[in-house]
């Protein structure tokens, strides 16, 4: 047993997992308020990264400014997407809405390929290539920033849903749009807000990922990758999303450890989380923190 390696992999798992958690939160946010599963989440994230990259590279803006601009851009983008694409579908069967987000992801993927090209582009190093050593593992500063950021955003979301008026409105909208309307909640506004926030947070996650791994359209697969995280945590739980993310991150790394050290099967890294996902769901059908449906008859 190579304890040192195991330990480092676990730290790596937690850090990567927290990033999954942030993306997972974006999912949960949209799901919780609109019941929509956003298949274009990954593309949102990449778009955010590209836009920031564009501002830095082409407009030569300082990074912080570019980052802020990118967040602003994505917020507006989220609202636009909601207005143009999702608003007409308010009240339609949920599966059609899901399909629309799939269409959106196809569209965005192609558009970004066209506009930004399909190769990976480097961000100029912002934090240098600085790394910090945690328990012997070198970790990029950008990742650590994302860790702090994600905890902060998580707290914000939690507060938002639990206590703010709009948080309540979002939950009510998710429960039943007609009921929400009857209470004077503007479903359109709620949707726009959910998408705006989600796009904004995706942008943060995208830029972080871009800083570490270079920006490329293939980063969008993280959109699919966080599904297990969301489900393990429970679809409608913010805290669950983060914990789910960490679990998936850990699992990936543990799988890599056992595979690399003992089994040599290869590719366990990508599949193992899915096995565990099924096992967790068989034990807890609503994930670890998801709310059970109320089933009365």
């Amino acid at each position, binding site marked *: 047993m190579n304890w040192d390696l195991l330990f480092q992999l676990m730290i790596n798992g937690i850090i990567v997992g927290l990033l999954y958690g942030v993306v997972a939160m974006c999912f949960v946010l949209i799901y919780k308020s609109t019941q929509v599963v956003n298949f274009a989440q990954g593309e949102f994230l990449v778009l955010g990264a590209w836009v920031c990259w564009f501002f830095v590279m082409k407009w030569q803006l300082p990074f912080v400014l570019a980052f802020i601009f990118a967040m602003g851009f994505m917020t507006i983008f989220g609202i636009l997407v909601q207005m143009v694409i999702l608003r007409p579908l308010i009240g*339609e069967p949920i*599966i059609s809405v899901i399909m629309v987000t799939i*269409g959106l992801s196809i569209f965005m993927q192609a558009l970004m390929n*066209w506009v930004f090209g399909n190769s990976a582009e480097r961000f100029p190093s912002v934090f240098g290539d600085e790394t910090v050593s945690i328990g012997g593992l070198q970790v990029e500063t950008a990742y650590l920033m994302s860790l702090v950021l994600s905890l902060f955003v998580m707290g914000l979301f939690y507060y938002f849903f639990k206590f703010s008026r709009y948080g309540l409105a979002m939950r009510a909208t998710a429960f039943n749009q007609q009921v929400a309307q009857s209470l004077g909640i503007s479903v359109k506004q709620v949707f726009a807000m959910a998408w705006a926030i989600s796009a904004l947070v995706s942008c943060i996650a995208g830029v972080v990922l871009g800083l570490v791994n270079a920006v490329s359209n293939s980063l969008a697969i993280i959109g699919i990758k966080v599904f297990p995280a969301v489900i393990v945590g429970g679809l409608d739980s913010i805290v669950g999303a983060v914990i789910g993310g960490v679990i998936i991150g850990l699992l990936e790394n543990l799988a890599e450890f056992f595979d690399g050290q003992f089994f040599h099967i290869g590719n366990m890294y990508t599949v193992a989380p899915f096995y565990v996902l099924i096992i967790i769901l068989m034990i807890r059908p609503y994930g670890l923190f998801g709310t059970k449906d109320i089933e009365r008859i």
Partner: protein
Amino acid sequence: MSHVPHPRPCGDFRTSYSADTSLFRTKVEGWTVYLGIFALLFTPLFFNDFYISQMILIGIYAIAALGLNVLVGFTGQISLGHSAFFGFGAFASAWLNNTTGIPVFICIPLAGLMTTAIGMIFGIPAARLKGLYLAIATLASQFILQDFFSRADWFSGGAYGSAAEVVNFLGIDLDTDTKYFYLVLFWVVVSFLAVSNLRRSRDGRALVAVRDHYLSAEIMGINLTRYRIMSFGVSSFFAGLGGALYAHYLQYVSVEGFTILLSIQFLAMIIIGGLGSVSGSLLGAIFILLLPQFMEEVASSAAMVFEGIEQSKAYIKEMSVGAVIILFLIFEPEGLIHRWRLIRASWKLYPFSH
């Protein structure tokens, strides 16, 4: 799936219950379908290979989409792993034939049955999971099976894939598109008949009941676990059948053909065609298969007009595919079949609505 009335034209009174449970709602509709199938028998005489090959693919995808529609449309369980079952059927048929030498003609339905078994195993979580939780569990089966394909050298040829023999029927090699067309047509007709029949008999009704209100369905005597898992079985059967037909059409099976993208395409087919509608599955398959081709044409014409977008053609095509899906759902979120029903309803009720 919304509530559209099902009016019948005046004068079409049903005089027996058997007439009332017939496959087609009107005589005209029935004859249209019979004539359509009859006409299809002669299409290879009039169309070139390209069109035939498109029809073959439509037929194959329609069979698999039909299976998915049983699962999603009838039982209401979203699956993101349908292409893995499609792939399993493809590999299974090739493997059966390569290892046992059973004639391909027979391997195809057998592969369907093998896929049924696999589908039911992966359907076990359905007994406990609902909605999106189940959807993501099926996503897991997608990745698990895909990984299995790329690893199980003995079964699938691993990452390299494996060859699938030409179908031989009564001594005739079905090695041209024209010949293969009839094989696919046969299975399309059989599958669509079977599912139409299922829809109007006991177990099909039970599946829909489970979708609409599983709590009361259970109290009406329907065993939820059994039906939820069986619906995975039935759906996988058609996926496997379609996959097997696909394998022997391409004569080569490779894991790359069966990714999540194809699963999503299957979903798109049934949503755009019409959830729970048998004929919608076919319409959806036609739509999704022809859309990229059509957009390719559009992009090519655009490339001729505007200089310098030749290289970007592929992206323009993809973008239009995404855009059309979005636009379609915005304007017809309940599918092609719904639009058709609405047209029919307003046409028959006009001017005396209710």
